[in-house]
């Protein structure tokens, strides 16, 4: 029997409700339950889950909908009680805050007049509008929101560029500004390496390794995954590079991206050759053959970090950072047990894995994402569990272990599976203790393989620093104690997994060649100059949990408890826009 409870005008952000859904799902006697705002998009998700009802039909975007499938009526009340308790506890825990909470842009600006950046994490359909609102107020934009149309992104970035502002994102998962972690980010020492990156976990992996090697990061500017696509033309990447060129505390610049469109790549590389500082660049999926002038090219994320550290220390740059001994002793596998399953929470870590796996199989380094698989061939699989395909109505796997736990158990049941590769991404935004959360499934996986007389290998790396809110060394210890092979970084973990199944990657020794410097205009606007030289002062529009990293690091922040304009009432929204 399906029951529907509609709580009128009770807006909560989606992450909260997803976590709440998980919590009430645990109530015994519940077949299925979903708690969401009754937006048109979410109604489709209810439909998909077989939880669509007539009451839901009439609910509006600002209404919270609880749909419970249970055989016993009294469980419904239990769900409602638990929901209310959850929301109440949340308001109590938010009782003593180091920042003010506002509901309008006017109030936000009034509360924090020196704000220079808006961090936007509202639902994608509203993100561009809020982005424009921020730019119109002279604020740089960090846009965590995804599902923003490409044209909207181009429009935002062109406007920002004209106004001398930066738009980081959309779909910007991470960033570090003057030592302050943004959204999903590690706590990395402040230092002299500046990063501009078009990928989330790519920046996290490189910045964490830099920290663990003893150096630090000045700024890590995220651009969003599509910045280097043709319609955008790397607007943010290029402005970001110029910003770091003009930032005196930055000595080395690191560029991280997936392979861009040819013309865009040429434009970016041409700019890099004008820069006065040494640069290390990785276009993930390209296997570079040489270092050119001031631009050093890396094949893996770890190599990117290692070159950056050697550059900043003025060490000689090695021809190859990737070669090494990745053998595992005493491997025993059954006949036909030769598949590697990469189950990743980090998209770029999944991509890096796919590149190396493809390369080792002699299939080249160019990869494509199909149906949530970054790589799928001959039983080998690399899955990006943070892909939209797996996150519809569910929290990201960096927050919630559920989807990955299932995949781990399934992979163990496949008798071809020799190695399961995992990533554990620490830092702000991520789960408090993903190692412990996944260990039950990992133990089940080991036990299942054993019960069928197979050895199963699990190889992992932990992307994090000793300063992260989670316990970095404790994570490694817990994983090792459970029988997992833990390597320092994803590159090493992948190569270790490959060696278990008898594969390896041939690396290229890169020589340095001189190329003439180019003459691009490297000047930046006053606002960008101020942005890299001053501590960010932030209006956080949307997810309240993002304020934790900011207040922990003494950034000035005001929380904008965003809700859809006019409660999502389209008619009033239009009238309001006419009455501006």
């Amino acid at each position: 029997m399906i029951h529907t409870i509609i709580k009128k005008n009770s807006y909560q952000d989606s992450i909260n409700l997803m976590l709440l859904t998980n919590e009430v799902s645990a109530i015994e006697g519940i077949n299925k339950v979903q708690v969401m705002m009754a937006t048109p998009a979410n109604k489709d998700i209810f439909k998909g889950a077989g939880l669509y009802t007539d009451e839901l039909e009439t609910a509006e975007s600002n209404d919270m909908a609880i749909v419970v499938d249970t055989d016993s009526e009294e469980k419904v009340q239990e769900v409602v009680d638990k929901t209310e308790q959850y929301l109440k506890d949340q308001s109590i825990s938010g009782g003593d805050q180091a920042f003010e909470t506002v509901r309008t842009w006017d109030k936000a600006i009034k509360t924090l007049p020196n704000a220079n950046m808006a961090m936007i994490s509202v639902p994608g359909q509203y993100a561009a509008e809020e982005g424009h609102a921020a730019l119109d107020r002279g604020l740089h934009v960090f846009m965590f929101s995804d599902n923003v149309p490409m044209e909207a992104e181009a429009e935002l970035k062109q406007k920002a560029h004209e106004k001398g502002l930066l738009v980081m994102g959309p779909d910007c998962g991470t960033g570090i500004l003057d030592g302050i972690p943004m959204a999903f980010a590690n706590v990395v020492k402040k230092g002299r390496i500046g990063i501009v990156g078009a990928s989330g976990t790519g920046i996290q992996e490189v910045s964490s390794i830099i920290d663990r090697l003893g150096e630090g990061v000045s700024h890590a500017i995220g651009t969003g995954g599509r910045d280097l696509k043709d319609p955008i033309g790397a607007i943010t990447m290029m402005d970001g590079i110029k910003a770091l060129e003009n930032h005196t505390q930055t000595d080395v610049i690191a560029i991280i991206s997936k392979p861009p469109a040819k013309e865009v790549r040429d434009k970016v590389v041409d700019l890099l050759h004008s820069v006065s500082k040494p640069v290390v660049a990785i276009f993930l999926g390209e296997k570079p053959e040489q270092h050119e002038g001031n631009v050093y090219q890396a094949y893996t994320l770890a190599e990117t970090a290692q070159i950056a550290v050697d550059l900043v220390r003025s060490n000689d740059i090695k021809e190859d950072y990737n070669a090494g001994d990745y053998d595992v002793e005493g491997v025993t596998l059954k006949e036909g047990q030769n598949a590697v399953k990469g189950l990743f929470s980090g998209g770029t870590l999944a991509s890096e894995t796919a590149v190396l796996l493809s390369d080792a199989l002699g299939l080249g380094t160019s990869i494509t994402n199909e149906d949530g698989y970054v790589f799928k061939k001959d039983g080998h699989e690399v899955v990006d569990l943070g892909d939209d395909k797996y996150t519809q109505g569910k929290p990201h796997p960096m927050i919630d272990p559920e989807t990955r736990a299932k995949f781990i158990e399934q992979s163990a049941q496949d008798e071809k599976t020799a190695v399961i590769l995992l990533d554990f991404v620490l830092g702000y935004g991520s789960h408090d203790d993903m190692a412990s959360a996944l260990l039950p499934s990992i133990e089940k996986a080991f036990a299942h393989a054993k019960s069928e007389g197979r050895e199963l290998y699990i190889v992992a790396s932990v992307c994090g620093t000793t300063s992260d809110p989670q316990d970095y060394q404790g994570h490694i210890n817990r994983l090792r104690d459970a029988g997992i092979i833990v390597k320092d970084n994803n590159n090493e973990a992948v190569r270790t997994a490959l060696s278990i199944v008898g594969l390896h990657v041939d690396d290229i020794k890169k020589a340095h060649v001189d190329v003439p410097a180019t003459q691009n205009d490297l000047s930046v606007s006053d606002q960008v100059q101020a942005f890299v030289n001053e501590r960010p002062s932030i209006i956080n529009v949307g997810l309240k949990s993002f304020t934790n990293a900011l207040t922990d690091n003494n950034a000035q922040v005001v929380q904008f408890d965003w809700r859809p304009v006019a409660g999502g009432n389209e008619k009033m929204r239009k009238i309001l826009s006419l009455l501006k």
Partner: protein
Amino acid sequence: MQYNSIDEANRAVIDRITGSAPFLVDVVPAKSKIKELNEGKVLLHAGPPIKWDDMTGPMQGSCIGASLYEGWAANEEEAEKMLAGGEVKFIPCHHVNAVGPMGGITSANMPVFVVENRSTGNEAYCIMNEGIGKVLRFGAYSDEVINRLKWMQDVLAPTIAKALKLTDDGLNLNVMIAKAITMGDEFHQRNIAASLIFLKEISPYIVQVDMDEKERHEVIKFLADTDQFFLNIMMATGKAVLDGARQIEEGTVVTAMCRNGKDFGIRISGMGDEWFTAPVNTPQGLFFTGYSQDDANSDIGDSAITETFGVGGFAMIAAPGVTRFVGAGGFSDALSTSNEMTEICIDQNSNFTIPTWDFQGTCLGIDARKVVETGIEPVINTGIAHKKAGLGQVGAGTVRAPKECFEKALEAYAKKLGLI
């Protein structure tokens, strides 16, 4: 539109509010100022227009009481028959420069305060506060109620009127409000400081009035006992100021909020006299012993003019003392209530700074656009009437203005401007 933008028009409206100069100048029989009251049997009521049949208990009770007071009927049955029979004409207070608390029932001979807004040259009127317990505004009409009204007409009103005549040019209300807000009043639920200031200002003149000593004592005693005496002066002040401001007939500033027990009505500057209504909510709050939420009448009264002016619920932070009484959780709730209200207001009024709010000014100019945009409905502090006539006040609490009023107002204004 004569302004370049709605923002500019709104600024002109709120400049009228901050530039206002309200003075309490007189107390007179309502009929001497409101000519409509001389045209047969006429009663003024709170809120937007309403028919007898649609009135809730307290307002009907007040009508009965007023009929007895005016001598139109000898008893309750006669009065009810006359009222139900359509013999009495009903006019909203707001249509005749007046405001009335709760039922807002005002009849020809009831004395009203006269507040003059000297910056815009208009006046506003409000009946005098009768104290608490069994009172007409909550629908009570026993002999005790009628006798008190007669005493107010015969003794209290003439005394205050004479005392006011002795002042140079009336009482400067901005000064009294500015003082009282620093003393913990928010002017809707709590007026004790302002009432004391009024007593302080008026008593030197009352002692000069040539009158019976026993009656003088009664007047002073009544003023000293009536904690909410200033509320009705505040209401007339709000009306005088906002009527002055709405002489500018553009923009989206809310210029009146009121309730008749059935409908909540608002006006915005750009739409002149037109009401935009939606069904009222029922206040939530604390109840006197023996009563509960089930006894509560739906929202009623013109007193939300105080919130429209920027005090009342909007100035909750000024009066932490009553936050518990109106059901809120304490100082931090009072703070977040006032902070929330700044989100829907255009500015803050530095004439009235609130010490407990780091000397920020009271809320200034509710922008209907902001209400609709954010979904934050204006909060109103209010007394709660028993839904049955004659039982009077049973509690106090808060209530929200329904956002539909604001949506309708904006839609109408967009039409008027030819935008849709």
